[in-house]
């Protein structure tokens, strides 16, 4: 078991309250927040203020790799085992567009999925508390902090409108 990360977990029923708390905590210098929600939400995203996910680079690079691989594979294989069909060139590019296209989609999708998994794992959530109600209708805000700062964090969360605050410090 991973060691628990010391900090305070606030639970919210109201979206505006959670956003107020996040903005207040950010202003107080707590940048390493973990915000749990059952569904993606634009207001939360705006309050957290992260940059757009770099997963799009994974899609782009995967797609380009797939496209190159599709054309390279078909052209190379056609030349390696030359089959003369209907007087067409050995490496008949129009016919190979289909393969190039399919592999663009295939590799692009698979690297996108790998992107979600790897990028999400880069920020470890080990030892951070989670409450099953966060996958239902509550929003959770976890603030890692040392015991001496916990009281101030608790106050920020309660003032913003947290319905339940747990200290694990």
């Amino acid at each position, binding site marked *: 078991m991973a060691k628990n990360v010391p900090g305070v977990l606030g639970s919210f029923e109201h979206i505006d309250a959670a956003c107020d708390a996040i903005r207040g905590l950010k202003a107080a210098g707590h940048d390493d*927040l973990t915000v749990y929600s059952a569904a993606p939400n634009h207001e939360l995203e705006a309050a957290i203020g992260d940059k757009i996910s770099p997963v799009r680079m994974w899609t782009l690079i995967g797609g380009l790799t797939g496209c190159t691989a599709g054309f390279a594979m078909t052209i190379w*294989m*056609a030349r390696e085992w030359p089959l003369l069909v209907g007087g067409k060139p050995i490496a008949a590019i129009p016919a190979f567009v289909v393969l190039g296209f399919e592999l663009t*989609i*295939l590799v*692009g999708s698979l690297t996108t*999925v790998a992107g979600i998994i790897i990028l999400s794992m880069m920020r470890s959530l080990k030892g951070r508390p989670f409450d*099953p109600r966060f996958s239902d209708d509550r929003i959770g805000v976890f603030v890692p902090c040392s015991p001496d700062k916990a009281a101030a964090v608790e106050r920020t969360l309660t003032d913003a409108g947290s319905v339940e605050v747990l200290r694990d410090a």
Partner: protein
Amino acid sequence: MAVIAHDPSRPTQTHAEVTRDVLKSITDKPTTGYYILVAVMAFLTLVLFATVTAELKYGLGIAGYAPPVMWSVYITTFVFWVGIGHAGTLISAILFLFRSPWRTAVYRSTEAMTVFAVMTAALFPIIHIGREWVFYWLIPYPNQRYLWPNFKSPLMWDVFAISTYLTVSSTFLMIGLVPDIAAVRDNVSGWKKKVYGALSLGWTGADSQWRHYTRAYLYLAALATPLVLSVHSVVSWDFASSIVPGWHGTIFAPYFVAGAIYSGVGMVFTLIIPLRKVLKFEHMITDYHFDNLGKLTLFVGTILFYAYAMEYFVAWYSGSTFEQVTFFRRALGPNWWAGWSMIICNAFVSQLLWFRKIRTNMTSLFVISIFINIGMWFERYVIVVSSLTNDYVPYAWGQINPTFADWFLLAGSFGWFGLWFALFYKNFPIVAIQELKELIPMPRRKLDGGAH
């Protein structure tokens, strides 16, 4: 605060009610009816595998293949099932990109339908090979004979199109499922919690997860959109790049894609009309959703109507005797019953959906959906079989009569598909919990409107 008329795309429940209502289908004990359904589907699946075993022993002859018709019910059924899949991806990916909120309540069931339909379809080319144990020859791999597949063949394109489609649509389904499986995990106990916990891949709904997830989902949808249009185009080129009269048409790709979506929406109706009754989801999948699905069916059905008319017109206008004879025989030859079934069930029955009363009446929609399923199977039968029966030389004309093996495999394919679908809807959220929640505004403390 002004009172705004209720937006029908927006669910009426709260977040907690969505979780409760959807998960009820998983946590409730299965009824006797469910066990009977699974038993029937499992029996039909056994019929499928028994027939395949018989074919392995006695050869493809038991399917009645004889020159000139070497493609028959197997290929018909293959195209039928691939087509079914297309509506699922259209609803889950294309309508996602177009931001159609009505897709949300139905997309999970249609996406599951896609995956299982493609899994069913993929069996048939392999069964049709006859020597199933060497199907891997289709995949390019370094071998001691220094042979490579012929990539100029549309059949090779098909191998890549179908396997890409199966991979991407299953990935899309599974990625969409992860947050919902996490919701199931948090609401069950015991060994089930362990299983769903493992399947949820450590999902907690943390901001660091949503951030990548929502973007990636968008790109997956963007990749799946051209894919769905390409797959049935490639299937159509299996036919159109040959010179067989009745197959050699430039209209084939859009004609097949429209037909695929039409048949798929038909299957969506067949599945979700009983499903929503059994699971008591009437408040989530409403008349509004069926009305929109009905309009979609009408739209693609009308494209099909046009394509059918155009096929006959072009056959006549081309001045090619062979095309003309093929189409004359399609309407008035020995397979006239199949030709007319296709035109009546697809082109004409779909036109009933102009009426809103019909689009929102479950009985009429269900009956229409059965016509669509039958009609679209016949469409493929007509295209595959009736074109092959009359080649260029009348001396080489022939007929085929489907045998017991054909019918057993067709029935078995419904069992195989139905078994997967039945197991899926009882064990996984059949309505997308997190996407429904995204449509429902969260409660606020202050009534100041917020950022949106």
